[in-house]
């Protein structure tokens, strides 16, 4: 293992490389209109310092991981204490209960701005849960998920604009429309494997967006659809504060329902067969599982969930346009799933909260936030490629047998 001085030496070399590598972009600034050049020599010092610091911690962390002396939560004092508290009877329930209570109270104790941001995060939790079914459980990489989200949003917007359909009717309709769309896309797509599947779903996503941008009559094209009504409560409409809270509560309810559904599916005969498909499709098929049917089911359910999220999104923002459903949106949702930990509901929730709230609260760093964000993604993957919450399988208790856990 390297000592600090060695790491520092190596970092210093990296800093010099960093300065050289970023020289043209950071130091020279070209004004092509006035044909002027600005030399920003101080950038060299800045870049050098930043690279030196990052490199130092980077290498140190790598050394630690290589020698296996990393922090493991479950084995740490805090982790053991956590588990011993959580394993007491009733504790899980009361913790869960107070968490739900706190979540319900949030809009009444914070500003509408905060409530609105957290509602966004909740919508992304729903999206993350939906995509997680396909990517995390089924192992099928879908890079066009935002399109299904968009289909849901546009279903509500268009039905409302033309027929005055309200939120509560649109909610299931958006899910159904998106599920149908999923089935149509699924037919040609699902016999492809791995990366071919990824790029074709990306293609379908983009095609959907481009069509939306260009069908002026149906979707009002790039300008989008405005004045989408917020949900009503048995015909009663709320004011600004009220509706922000109301949508928040609807989002919480939907998240809970979807978590419940996903949880039930995960721990069922069908859910297990999805995971088996992810692990080894050939062995899975030879266990009597119909892969085509499994893939189709996965795709349709996950699309339906995106559709529901879409309706909620349209109702929250009251305005939608195709720019909300680009490839970057799909990528963002994928990041939520992978960052949190594929296949884990808790992971998805954590991933969504981090990815949506972090950039929001990184506003202090203003323009640096997307740069930092990209960098954090790399750091996360390099040092914890399995996501924050690693794959855990359910432990089954067998009646009359001693458990070895």
């Amino acid at each position, binding site marked *: 293992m390297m000592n600090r001085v060695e790491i520092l030496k190596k970092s210093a070399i990296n800093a010099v*490389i960093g300065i050289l*590598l*970023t020289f*043209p*972009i*950071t130091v*020279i*600034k*070209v004004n*092509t*209109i006035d*044909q*002027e*050049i600005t030399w920003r020599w101080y*950038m060299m010092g800045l870049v050098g310092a930043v690279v030196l610091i990052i490199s130092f911690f980077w290498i140190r962390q*790598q050394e630690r991981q290589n020698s296996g002396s990393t922090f493991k939560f479950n084995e740490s004092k805090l982790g053991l204490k956590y588990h011993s508290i959580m394993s007491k009877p009733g504790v899980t329930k009361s913790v869960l209960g107070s968490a739900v209570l706190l979540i319900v109270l949030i809009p009444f104790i914070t500003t509408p701005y905060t409530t609105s941001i957290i509602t966004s995060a909740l919508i992304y939790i729903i999206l993350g849960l939906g995509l997680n079914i396909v*990517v995390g459980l089924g192992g099928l*990489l879908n890079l066009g998920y935002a399109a299904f989200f968009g289909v849901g949003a546009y279903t509500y917007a268009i039905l409302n604009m033309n027929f005055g359909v309200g939120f509560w009717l649109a909610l299931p309709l958006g899910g159904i429309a998106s599920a149908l769309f999923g089935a149509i896309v699924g037919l*040609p797509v699902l*016999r*492809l*494997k791995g*990366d*071919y599947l*990824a*790029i*074709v779903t*990306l*293609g*379908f996503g*983009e*095609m959907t967006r*481009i*069509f939306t*941008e*260009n069908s002026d009559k149906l979707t009002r094209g790039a300008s989008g659809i405005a004045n989408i009504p917020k949900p009503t409560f048995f015909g009663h409409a709320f004011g600004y504060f009220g509706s922000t809270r109301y949508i928040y509560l609807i989002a919480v309810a939907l998240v809970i329902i979807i978590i419940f559904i996903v949880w039930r599916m995960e721990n069922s005969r069908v859910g297990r067969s999805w995971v088996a498909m992810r692990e080894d499709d*050939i062995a899975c098929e030879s266990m009597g599982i119909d892969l085509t049917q499994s893939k189709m089911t996965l795709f349709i359910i996950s699309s339906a969930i995106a559709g529901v999220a879409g309706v909620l999104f349209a109702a929250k923002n009251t305005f939608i346009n195709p720019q909300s459903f680009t*490839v970057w949106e799909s*990528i963002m949702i*994928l*990041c939520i799933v*992978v*960052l949190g930990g*594929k296949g884990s509901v808790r992971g998805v929730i954590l991933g969504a909260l981090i990815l949506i709230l972090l950039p929001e609260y990184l506003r202090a760093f203003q*323009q*640096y936030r*997307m*740069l930092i*964000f*990209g*960098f*954090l*993604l*790399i750091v*996360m*993957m*390099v040092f914890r*490629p*399995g996501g924050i919450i690693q794959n855990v399988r359910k432990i089954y208790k067998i009646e009359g047998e001693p458990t070895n856990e």
Partner: protein
Amino acid sequence: MDVGYFLKLLLSGLTRGSIYALIALGYTMVYGIIKLINFAHGELYMLGAFTGLIVASLMSYSGINPVLSLIVATIIAIIYSSAYGVAIEKIAYKPLRKSQRLSALISAIGVSMFLQNFVLLFQTSDFLSFPNLIPTFKFLKPVENYLSSAQVLIYICTALFLIGFTILVKFTKTGKAMRATSQDSKMAQLLGISINKVISFTFLIGSAAAAIGGVLISSQVGQINFYIGFIVGIKAFVAAVLGGIGSLAGAVLGSFVLGLVESFGTGYISSNYEDLFAFVVLIVILTFKPAGLLGKSEKQKV
């Protein structure tokens, strides 16, 4: 039918195809060797274009000969893009070689975001105009309505690069090592091939090609911004998949098919759907040939 219009579209399709080919090669090489969709590859093209623009502006503002400026700008762009490519691999992909491929993909997405915003922050979000450095070829005078000097330059450079590249891959020791690694990296390692060197070299060549594409197309189009790499990168990736990902000849073929389809599609159907044609072709071809035009369907060993 207007023959002139057709010809114009054909030639502009070949131009697009050339640029896609230069980028798609990098995608397909990296995929062949480490089975990673290098999402950030388009950004190397963008960095190449920016470095080229900065150097070219620097030189042309001080009155240096445009052709010399263009050559120097291209060379420096190649050097920088290659260096970025190798550095990215070392930082963001190498630690992930043994992890699941999805993790490496997310890391690549992170790199892409980082580089876009890096250029956005330290340069600008506006479009910058690329100095006009391409000489006017006199012999093109009779056909100037169909074919510009820039296009000819793009054809020539792409052709030269492809020839050089073919020689490199087919006949040199490094090329053989690359091919061996892409077929069976474990076996290659046992035979004493240094995987790290091969991978670094792959990123180097791929990034160099992207940089050439970046400088050439920006000097033709005349303006660039930080976002140009992303969409072109995706298109080039589509081209690589179209041809059968991992296959070098496939990447070139796929690029030209894509370039021509886009050119004729925008010319005869509608330019609103410019970005749509790529995906339509992709889906049609993969429906009939699930492994792409020249790709071998991978027989899994059961």
